[in-house]
């Protein structure tokens, strides 16, 4: 048994203390929000809620479940996530595979064309005008198409493809396998972990995104959840810049209860919280694959 010095003991205690502190700081806002969503509005206003629900009630959740616009937004977000992820994944695979093939003559120039877009972009306004010109404004496609190919994801996937044993692909080529079959029957079955990573990245980005919806969508029935959340969580009071005076007056009339805001937050992050612990290792894997190049 090693002898542990006093200094080392103090240091170890400090490390545990630091971790516990971090744990509390990270988790407290969530715990408070959960408790707030189950508490009565009066208790919340008085400041009685610190850790556990006070005057427990389900009123806030009833209000959320009865608000049809939240469910419309929920449905829209699911559409954006499913369609956006499907398009994004297919395009990412199709773009990454040729770039991973060392024999592909145009590999270098195309890589350069893609990488340049990570350093320089046209910016918000030209992209907005393009979306307008293409007739995508205020359509669901404006949410899923412009960002469908993320160059970062392409690089992640290409890096992974390149790490597969070259001999496999060479052998298949010699056997007269077409590139299409190599991709489908050899490369993809070996790449399930990176595919999971990419699916998660795209899906979470779609679930959490609000800016493209904010600038491209006018029709509230197409709003994704995050834009609806913005209405409930951010614009409920009159001081926000984006509010026009008329809407502000309306908002004051139907003051949204504090507990309802908490409940809305919980309802919107519940899917992520539920799947997150199981998927976390895939996210981390993505960072690692990226780190090889970064």
């Amino acid at each position, binding site marked *: 048994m090693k002898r542990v010095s006093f*200094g080392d003991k103090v*240091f*170890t205690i400090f490390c*545990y203390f*630091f*971790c516990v502190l*971090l744990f509390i700081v*990270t988790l407290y*806002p969530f715990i408070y*929000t959960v408790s707030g969503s189950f508490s009565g509005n009066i208790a*919340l*206003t008085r*400041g009685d809620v610190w850790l556990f629900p006070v005057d427990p009630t389900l009123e806030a959740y009833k209000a959320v479940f009865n608000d049809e616009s939240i469910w419309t937004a929920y449905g829209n977000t699911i559409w954006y996530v499913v369609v956006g992820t499907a398009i994004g994944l297919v395009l990412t695979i199709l*773009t990454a*595979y*040729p770039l991973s*093939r060392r*024999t592909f*003559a*145009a590999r270098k120039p*195309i*890589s350069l*064309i893609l990488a340049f877009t990570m*350093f*320089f*972009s*046209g*910016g*918000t*306004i*030209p992209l907005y*005008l*393009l979306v307008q010109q293409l007739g995508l404004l205020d359509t669901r496609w404006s949410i899923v198409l*412009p*960002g*469908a*190919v993320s160059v970062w994801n392409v690089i992640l996937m290409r890096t992974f493809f390149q790490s597969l044993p070259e001999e496999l692909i060479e052998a298949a080529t010699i056997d007269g396998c*077409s590139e*299409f079959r190599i991709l489908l029957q050899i490369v993809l079955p070996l790449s399930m972990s990176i595919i999971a990573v990419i699916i998660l990245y795209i899906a979470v980005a779609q679930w*959490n995104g*609000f*800016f493209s919806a904010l600038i491209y969508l006018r029709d509230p029935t197409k709003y994704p959840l995050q*834009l609806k*959340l*913005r209405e409930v*969580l*951010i614009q409920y009071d009159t001081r926000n*810049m*984006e509010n026009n005076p008329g809407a502000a007056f309306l908002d004051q009339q139907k003051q949204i209860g*504090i507990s309802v805001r*908490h409940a809305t937050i919980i309802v*919107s*992050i519940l899917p*992520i*919280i539920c799947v997150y*612990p199981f998927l976390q290792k895939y996210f*981390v894997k993505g960072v*690692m694959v990226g780190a090889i*190049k*970064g």
Partner: protein
Amino acid sequence: MENQLAVTNVPFSVRFMRAWRRDKLLWLLITPGLLFVLVFAYFPMYGLVIAFQNFSPYKGIGGSTWVGFAHFQDFFQSSDFWRLIKNTVLISLYTLIFGFPIPILLAIVLNEINTKWFKRVVQTVSYLPYFISVVVVCGMIKDFLNPSTGVINHFIELLGGEPIYFLTRPEYFKPIYVISQIWQTMGWNSIIYLAAVAGIDQGLYEAATIDGASRIKMIWHITLPSILPTVSIMLIMNMGSILSVGYEKIILLYNDATLSSADVISTYVYRRGLVQAEYSFGAAVGLFQNVINFTLVVAANYIVRHLTESSLW
């Protein structure tokens, strides 16, 4: 190797045809993705020419009048210019100064934890905020800081203080932005350092233990020097993006009262260019920002390459 030598003796046209025949299917596969990039990334770059015009959507790029650098001049001479630069740089700098060391500290501390389950729980929890949307984070901020119902002001009152109108006071905006940013990203940003720490040769620690070194000595003399390359790369990359403060959180949190300390270049582009539909002026400001960003990132990448002999790409 021999193959490549042989190829160079063959005429270009023959080589080209060979490559084409071999790569045909690969070209087919890459075309859709390439098309998307050309349309949604390169076409907007061409669209930047409206920064030098008085663009009108009815006349289009071809029909709008050219004004040269007029919009840039307007921007540089406007009273907003220095305020925007100052806010953008300060928010970046504060985030860097306070936010950069914490993930490194976290990675080092986590490495000292020997209780496996405890370590895993702390890691899992610390990554969680990264996956919460910016709208929800801002909603929580607004709730917590609410002057009459927020938990923070209840706490201040409990201590005998007066409630503070955090979100309408300009001096509080940057701290709120930076603290919430750190809360959201510290765990996630520690992953890369954890990987670097995990890659350190354990033999070094064993040797140090035999020599009777304390844990803190080992961190100072082994851990820190070993992860220094990663740290410096991350630092330089962060410096490269110093002028690109994201607009999303600021758009959600700022208001007329805090504009003086909250407005950054990207939010200004959004407000002038899109909300007020001054397309050309907005595009000009955006172009100014992108050119500086580009220069900084390329410079950062150049420095990193010389430090590590390995470029980003």
